[in-house]
């Protein structure tokens, strides 16, 4: 085996460019999925700060909440929501690949598992939304 190895000094070693991820749609989608974590992390930090404001009293909380109502923060939260949805959908697609589900000896088709998971996500999201609305009322 060693005797058949090519002369390394004569090989051409290709290098990946920093823009490799722009070359294929799937690479872009992958990078978007990874990038979504940045927005979700920032959202969680802001959310934690918002909860901390509760310990400082109603005025501090109201002041912080008012600042979150600025156009910049609303835009951020809309973008973060879109990224969170994208991340959730890709998560369910991924989980169907990682953990194949079976009924007896038969494997359930991936698309059905994904559809079931997405339906559950929609139901849970709807329930949370109803709870939020009822608490507002």
């Amino acid at each position: 085996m060693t005797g058949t190895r090519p002369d390394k000094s004569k090989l051409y070693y290709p290098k990946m460019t920093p823009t490799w991820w722009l070359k294929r749609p799937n690479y872009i989608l992958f990078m978007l999925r990874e990038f979504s974590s940045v927005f979700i992390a920032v959202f969680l930090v802001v959310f934690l700060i918002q909860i901390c404001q509760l310990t400082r009293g109603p005025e501090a909380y109201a002041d912080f909440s008012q600042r979150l109502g600025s156009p910049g923060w609303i835009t951020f939260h809309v973008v973060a929501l879109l990224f969170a949805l994208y991340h959730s959908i890709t998560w369910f697609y991924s989980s169907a690949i990682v953990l194949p589900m079976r009924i007896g000896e038969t494997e359930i088709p991936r698309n059905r598992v994904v559809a079931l998971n997405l339906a559950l996500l929609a139901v849970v999201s709807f329930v949370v939304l109803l709870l939020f609305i009822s608490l507002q009322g």
Partner: protein
Amino acid sequence: MADKTITLKVARYRPGQDPAPTLQTYTIPYRQDWVVLDALNHIKDQVDGTLSYRWSCRMGVCGSCGMMVNGVPKLTCAAFLRDYHPREIRVEPLANFPVIRDLVVDITDFLDKLKRVKPWLIRKLEKPIAEGEYLQKPQELEAYKQFTQCINCMLCYSACPVYGLEPEFLGPAAIALGYRYNLDSRDQGREERQPVLGAHDGVWQCTFVGECSEVCPKHVDPAAAIQRSKVEAAKDWVKAVLLPWGQR
């Protein structure tokens, strides 16, 4: 039909002469039933005998003729000219591998990694031939059959940006084949393979881009094999932590 032509831009690299590959243009007759490999063979036979590339079976079995066709890893014996005509076709060596000459890449790294996962049946004790075959139920065969379809064409390595950025990564096909033997009910070599698969340069380098499964011509789905191997490696870790006196 006979008057139609198609243009191929083919990567050329002459070791010791060229600092980097360049594209050479060939305009050849267009035939609807030709694949890219037929076009390369036409160039080699009729136009330029110095062109170098690998091929063998011409029927998607040997896995030798993998190349980048318009930037996508393909078996050139299965890439029809009609799917590209009248646009020109760019043919380059498989991405992420060192180039030996023209369209021929150095595959020794892949072969070394393949050997590390021990893609063969391992028995702690072979039973005598007189006792017969190692029998398997249809569902036991079904558990790993999909992963046996790998033809070592390396398109998955070429599509994997992680392998391009981190050449130490064990890579999709090697992991899929290691996983295939771990799933085989006749095999007893999981303990030998798992340290290789579960190492830092094994499954944990994978960021689940998933493109390996997209380009696989045999629908092996190496991305699934890698993610499921991660679950197996995680289980081993949990067992090692919870059962420090010895894994089962």
